């Protein structure tokens, strides 16, 4: 019986050893802070409309681990970002960079806003011209006062 208790105790003790192994690779608070900052800028590629910071998908965990490792190797945020973009493309960035292929994406809304504004301006000017004030003739003035008198 005692022997079995020892076996059991050893088995349980081995779990805590395993649990230690699974703990995060870096305990360095500076790296953790950088990782946290950066993962808000990165897309979780499996769950496409989440950032890496929001996601618990397996790939997101792996990517965080990879970023952590590269930061421990002394890479700057820019270098890590360049690495990820070279592997997954610009899509990995939550905010697409401004370049020739994304100009429409960045400037399109402003162009539309400008076009709408100009259109509205022209339209209003035109209307203003259409409604030039015409003074009432004596006959019309008489009719109006007659109508108003009738009302009261």
């Amino acid at each position: 019986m005692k022997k079995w208790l020892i076996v059991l105790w050893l088995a349980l003790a081995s779990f805590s050893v395993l649990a230690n192994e699974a703990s995060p690779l870096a305990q360095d608070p500076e790296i953790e802070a950088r990782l946290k900052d950066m993962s808000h800028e990165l897309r979780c590629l499996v769950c496409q409309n989440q950032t890496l910071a929001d996601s618990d998908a397996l790939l997101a965990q792996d990517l965080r681990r990879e970023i952590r490792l590269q930061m421990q190797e002394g890479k700057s945020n820019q270098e890590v970002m360049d690495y990820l973009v070279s592997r997954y493309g610009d899509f990995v960035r939550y905010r697409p960079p401004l370049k020739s292929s994304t100009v429409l994406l960045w400037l399109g809304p402003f162009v539309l806003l400008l076009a709408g504004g100009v259109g509205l301006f022209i339209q209003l000017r035109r209307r203003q011209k259409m409604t030039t004030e015409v003074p009432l003739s004596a006959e019309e003035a008489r009719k109006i006062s007659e109508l108003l008198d009738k009302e009261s």
Partner: protein
Amino acid sequence: MKPVFRALIPLAIFLVVAGFLFKGLFLNPKEVPSPLIDKPAPQFDLPRLDDPTKTFSPKDMLGKVWMLNAWASWCSTCRTEHAVLMEIMKMPELNLVGLNYKDTDAEAQTVLSTAGNPYQLVVTDSDGKVGIDYGVVATPETYLIDKAGIIRYKKIGAITREDAYTEIIPMIKELQK
């Protein structure tokens, strides 16, 4: 401009927008263009599934046109693809290397022994590190690599018979010239 035409402008704008959105319905958001096309295949040195004491590196395939197929036993789409791979691998000119992605050796071996093995060899990427290097998002993904070790094509998702016969195999024949 005639007033009739002017009245049709909003309708025209609506139709253009609707047209774009309609096309968007049939796009696959998972198909993200790979920046690795026309770039050298990332190097790695991974243990082989059949004999973990031996390793394989993309350098070993220099001078050959080959495919690297990321797969896993837990991936159901891979099983659909497996049948197609089994069929096309009857062609002697194809070299297919499996990248067993985030899997256990035992489970991977079970798949290969029950469903057949289309791979020339399989390497094990148990922690998915090489997968990240290749920009793997979700298995299956397949890379076609030319004689100089340059990635020429990437397929995201299962290779269908149609992909194989109309796209991949003609491309391999072209690259082998």
